[in-house]
């Protein structure tokens, strides 16, 4: 190189200039204006027709009918298009599993019953093929949660774009996954209670359940003592499990209390209140049956997929479809989710079904954007289109919740993300086969 630069000084200099120019233009591209677009802010500003959204350095800086175009900003013509805040999938295990049937591709469930020190972020696979497939339908942030045992570990909240988990993390720890043992029934699937061993008699099972709940209470009590001991004497020997639980007993870190049946939800609420936890219910298949309690105690719910069969033989055929409508009517705040890692892309249709069965359009949209942001404690950063928020934006050719709608542009943390996936590549490759 040194030799050739002496031989061809002009070529070398012009190459350097070109490289610098490319670098500068890339830097300039950190500014975008989506112009003349229907803006679904999902904030108090409502819907703005023929307005603009300005993105600079990863943040939304202006939203409105008249905006100041930053120098060098890339213009995206939004005529006939709509823009929505990126959707947030508030439950699931994307990044912790690739092909669930292949054991070695699963990092969701470790051994043991109490594992508060485990963190989803540590095992999150940023190159998972499932991530681009999920995001191109407009999902920009997702929870990745461990499972199994009574304390499964800590869930993480991640942006669905980035080279490394560090770049993608919105919250390394979004909360502690806690599943009280359940007394039979209502499980059969993700996010269910912990099965109890043995016990031919209901009383044996009840005793075993009480035993495990006591163990959890004792662990929380031990953590409180540990916190006091550490405060009193910083030389107190550290315990990683108790360190992880400390923010939970202090009410700083959310406990995701997993419960499905009415009885299990009541038990979970009672337990979490008694232990003074900051908590939400995750699962909530029968949350409608305890809606009054949830409203009274101001408990928010991260629902499992509602595109699901009724849990009981004699439930109405649409029991799960109508769950969001019933919770909304009772004034309970909830997030809709599509938890299965391969199916995260179907999150908008969860909201679409909720609307088909009685939820309002605005509430349906909020249940996949600002409500999950509020439930996860990140509503100051994501979930609406407002100046100051992270630029997670989806530009579509129509209603975000409709199946036929196409995503035209996708911004994650202000970056114009490619819409290419494993699926689009295979599609092109084999359409071209003669």
């Amino acid at each position, binding site marked *: 190189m040194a030799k050739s630069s002496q031989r061809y000084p002009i070529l070398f200099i012009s190459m350097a200039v070109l490289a610098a120019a490319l670098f500068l233009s890339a830097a300039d591209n950190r500014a975008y204006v989506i112009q003349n677009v229907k803006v679904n802010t999902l904030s108090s500003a409502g819907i703005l027709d023929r307005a603009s959204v300005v993105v600079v350095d990863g943040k939304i800086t202006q939203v409105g009918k008249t905006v100041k175009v930053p120098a060098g900003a890339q213009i995206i013509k939004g005529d006939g298009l709509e823009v929505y805040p990126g959707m947030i999938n508030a439950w699931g295990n994307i990044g912790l599993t690739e092909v669930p049937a292949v054991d070695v591709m699963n990092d969701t469930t470790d051994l043991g019953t109490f594992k508060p020190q485990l963190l989803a972020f540590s095992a999150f696979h940023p190159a998972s093929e499932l991530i681009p497939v999920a995001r191109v339908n407009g999902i920009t942030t997702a929870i990745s949660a461990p499972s199994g045992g009574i304390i499964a570990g800590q869930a993480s909240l991640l942006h669905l774009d980035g080279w490394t988990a560090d770049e993608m993390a919105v919250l390394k720890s979004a909360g502690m996954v806690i599943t009280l043992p359940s007394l039979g029934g209502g499980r059969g699937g993700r996010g269910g209670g912990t099965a109890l061993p043995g016990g031919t008699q209901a009383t044996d099972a009840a005793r075993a359940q009480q035993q495990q709940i006591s163990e959890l209470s004792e662990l929380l009590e031990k953590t409180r003592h540990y916190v006091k001991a550490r405060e009193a004497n910083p030389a107190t020997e550290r315990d990683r499990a108790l360190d992880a639980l400390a923010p939970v007993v202090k009410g700083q870190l959310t406990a995701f209390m997993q419960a499905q049946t009415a009885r299990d939800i009541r038990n979970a609420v009672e337990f979490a209140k008694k232990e003074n936890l900051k908590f939400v219910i995750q699962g909530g298949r029968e949350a409608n049956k305890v809606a009054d309690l949830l409203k009274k105690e101001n408990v928010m719910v991260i629902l499992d997929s509602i595109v699901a069969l009724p849990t009981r033989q004699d439930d*109405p055929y649409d029991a799960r479809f109508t769950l969001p409508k019933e919770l909304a009517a009772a004034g309970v705040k909830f997030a809709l989710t599509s938890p299965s890692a391969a199916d995260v892309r179907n999150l908008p249709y969860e909201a679409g079904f909720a609307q088909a069965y009685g939820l309002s359009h605005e509430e349906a949209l909020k249940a996949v954007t600002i409500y999950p942001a509020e439930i996860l404690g990140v509503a100051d950063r994501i979930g609406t289109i407002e100046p100051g928020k992270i630029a997670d934006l989806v530009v579509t050719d129509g209603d975000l919740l409709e199946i036929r709608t196409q995503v035209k542009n996708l911004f994650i943390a202000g970056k114009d993300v490619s819409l290419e996936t494993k699926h689009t590549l295979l599609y092109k490759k084999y359409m071209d086969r003669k």
Partner: protein
Amino acid sequence: MPNRFKIHIKILFILAVLAMVCAAWAQMGSSGVVLIKDATILTVSHGNIAKGSILIRDGKIAAVGPNLTAPAGAAVIDATGQFVMPGIIDPHSHIAIAGGINEGTLAVTSMVAIEDVLDPTDINIYRELAGGVTTTLTMHGSANPIGGTNAVIKLRWGKDAKGLLFKGAKPTLKFALGENVKRSGAAATRYPATRMGTEDVIRTAFIEARDYMRAWDEYKKRVAASDKIAIPPKKDLKLEPLVEVLRGERTTNVHGYRADEMLMMLRLADEFGFKVNSFEHGLEAYKIAKEIVAHGAIVSTFSDGWAYKIEAYDSIPYNAAIITRKGGMACINSDSAEEARHLNQEAAKTMKYGGLSEQEALALVTLNPAKELRIDDRVGAIDPGKDADLVIWNHHPLSVYAVAQKTMIDGEIYFDIQKDQEMRKRTEEERKSLEALDKKNAPQGRGRGSAPDNFINKIPHRQD
């Protein structure tokens, strides 16, 4: 759980069923003539009629058009602002089957029949009616290379097992390739446990069947020639269905995922001179569209299921669209009592992924599966002369917001959303009174009285 409570719930169901049937009868005009009027009609066979009517007589579609008037005595359904499409046909399901779908203890179980174990009380029949499904191919599982024979049923909720059968539908037989067969083999130490073994088992079975067919042909020839000492070959119930396949009297539904295993099956079918009627799932069919189209096999696939096992890792939601664009025929199936309830919306995904037209998308869950099951002379489109199997929707059925309002089979209403609302009130009241009764009669001191939580079903997953 007290058995008595179970019985009470059963009785409750039977009463509910009877109520539904009575309601359906009440809805019918006494003359057996019904007019659905002023709806947007999606015929699937010949486009849409913006404000049209359908005249139904004796369970058949008598006329379709923009200007029909109700004959005297006809029951009239005003469907203004609503959409009518042909009843959805789910060409891959496992509902209404009692006690397990896999006879996987042997590699070849063509002697078993789903028809013999139909369960007309499966609540999923009603739930699927509420999703617009009227006809279903309910199938043996995929644990072995050659499974049992399948059953084409109409979802006539309230009828007995015989009353479900789609009379005149062509008989079918299930085959399976790939991981499910391998896994079942490895777990039960039953041959085969590889794709090589799977081919070997199917080839061996067809060699046997061919010999058996020839022996019977020889016997019949001798009888025809008045040979008095001709001895009939021993009847073999396993080989009979395979002979029917060789004679073209029974169609084949071949579960397969990977392109290579489907090509194996096409070669094998050519070798024995039969047709692969359909590849079930055929998730990699798009890689070998040319070969599949040349053979004439239909691809009955998922809308967007993928990555749940390694042979589904290259599954793409463009599969049905690629097969369609390359001149083949595709269907969208559910393989799930849940997904069957929104096959119309699953079909809509082919418009998003691959750009199919509305009519092409609707055909994936109506006309194409009717062709696959060889019942397209009876169902699958809104044409005069066809069975009056129809669904009325409040929105366009390819919209995520569409909810079925009425589902009709043979001109009879089997699901009506208004009647359903009334029924659920009655069910809830009866449930409460039964629970109260159960509590009163429960033995004191043990158990927990009423135990509604024990009624929660395991959520059914895709069974393949």
